[in-house]
């Protein structure tokens, strides 16, 4: 597991903008305002959402999609593409 690298000033920095560690600490899912939620009864396990997700944030576990909320930005492409309306976008409550 990667941890946050503390940078206090130029002495800790390389001369150009280059990541010093893995970017896994940077959970970009925190940008999300709307979250996709699955209505499992409506899902036909077609995997169209998995194909269309632009951020590779949908994993198929068993037959059904599971959202990776650590990185999902809430764009809603999956909900838009779902032919049976099995994905709804709900307001992110934090």
């Amino acid at each position, binding site marked *: 597991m990667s941890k946050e690298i503390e940078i206090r000033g130029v002495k800790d*920095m*390389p001369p*150009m*903008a*280059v990541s010093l560690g893995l970017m896994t600490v940077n959970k970009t899912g925190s940008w999300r305002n709307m979250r996709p939620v699955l209505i499992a009864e409506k899902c036909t396990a077609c995997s169209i959402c998995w194909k269309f997700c632009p951020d590779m944030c949908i994993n198929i576990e068993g037959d059904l999609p599971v959202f990776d909320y650590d990185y999902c930005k809430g764009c809603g492409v999956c909900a838009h593409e779902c032919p049976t309306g099995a994905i709804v976008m709900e307001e992110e409550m934090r």
Partner: protein
Amino acid sequence: MKKVVTGNHAVSFASKIARAQVVAAYPITPQTQVVERISKFVADGEMDAIFIKVESEHSALAAAIGASAAGARAFTATSSQGLALMHEMMHWCSYARCPVVIANINRALGPPWSIWTEQNDSLAQRDTGWIQYYCESNQDVLDSIIQAFKVSERVLVPSMVVLDSFFLSHTSEPVDFPDQDKVDEFLPPYKGEWVIDPDNPHTFGGLTGPDKYYELHYMLQQAHKDAEQVMDEVHKEYEKLFGRKYGRIEPFMADDAEVLLVVSGTPASTAKQAVIDARDEGFALGSVKIRVFRPFPRELVKEVCRGKKAVAVVDRNYSFGNQGIFFTEVRDAIYDLEPRVPVYSYITGLGGRDITAEDLVNIGKAAEKKECDNPTWWGVKL
């Protein structure tokens, strides 16, 4: 070995002698011969480099940046409209600290279409974070490119080597070609510390917040500061190996001069003739060439101007709504000299109009008599 070559071919040969590994370029008058000759070197197997044909200058610099980021010695050449199209990538290159070297042939921007020399194309890139050299002769061109690679790779700041359209690009002059062995000694292969490596992946240039962006720019400025000392060392080493002396500024009969011309590019060589002519008439004129414009040699300019009766800055460029660009830089550098040195701005030679030795003597005389409108558009037809 001496060869008679044009400024353009001096550029091509310099990139070959410097062992550039990737050249990505798009042809544009007056730079076309540079690219033609490099592509021939590569096609004939004389130059161990990858030559990338691209669809625009923006792509040319983007490809050079990619090569440099991967640890290759990268080179490109352009002019005028082409350099303007590179502008976005100019920032990227310096902020990414890629030590790319560009040769830019100074050409006036359109409209109206012009292919003749003027410095506004390169000076419009002043604040992109690049080192800039302005060349006086084809020898200067060849030597500056070889030196620029060394300086750039030491401080991780890209360099632009600038030469005048036609006055250098298409004019043949005898140029001394340094031995390859000696150049290899002077300029060993580039080994970047922060380069793209699939076995050690990093994100380059990723989104960076205000908490770190500011410090990155501070480091680029520090690198420019370091470049001054590195250049002085490089000039000494170059002189030792190749016998040719260079400076960030190059004064000519300046010590005992009462009036000083400040010049850049080919007018620097005309100014030497003007100084000789003026001395024959008993007029104590001297000149100083600004060879390195970025980092601006503030302290050197200040010292050479100290005690002068008048300083006349000759600009083949213009910052519309203000003044000649070298003028504002020079006046800023010498502002706090005591006693104050009067400095005058003369605009000359835009769009490739001739700047003669007679013009320069008369500009010196005008400055001595304080005849200047700051700026004076020398010889403008009203």
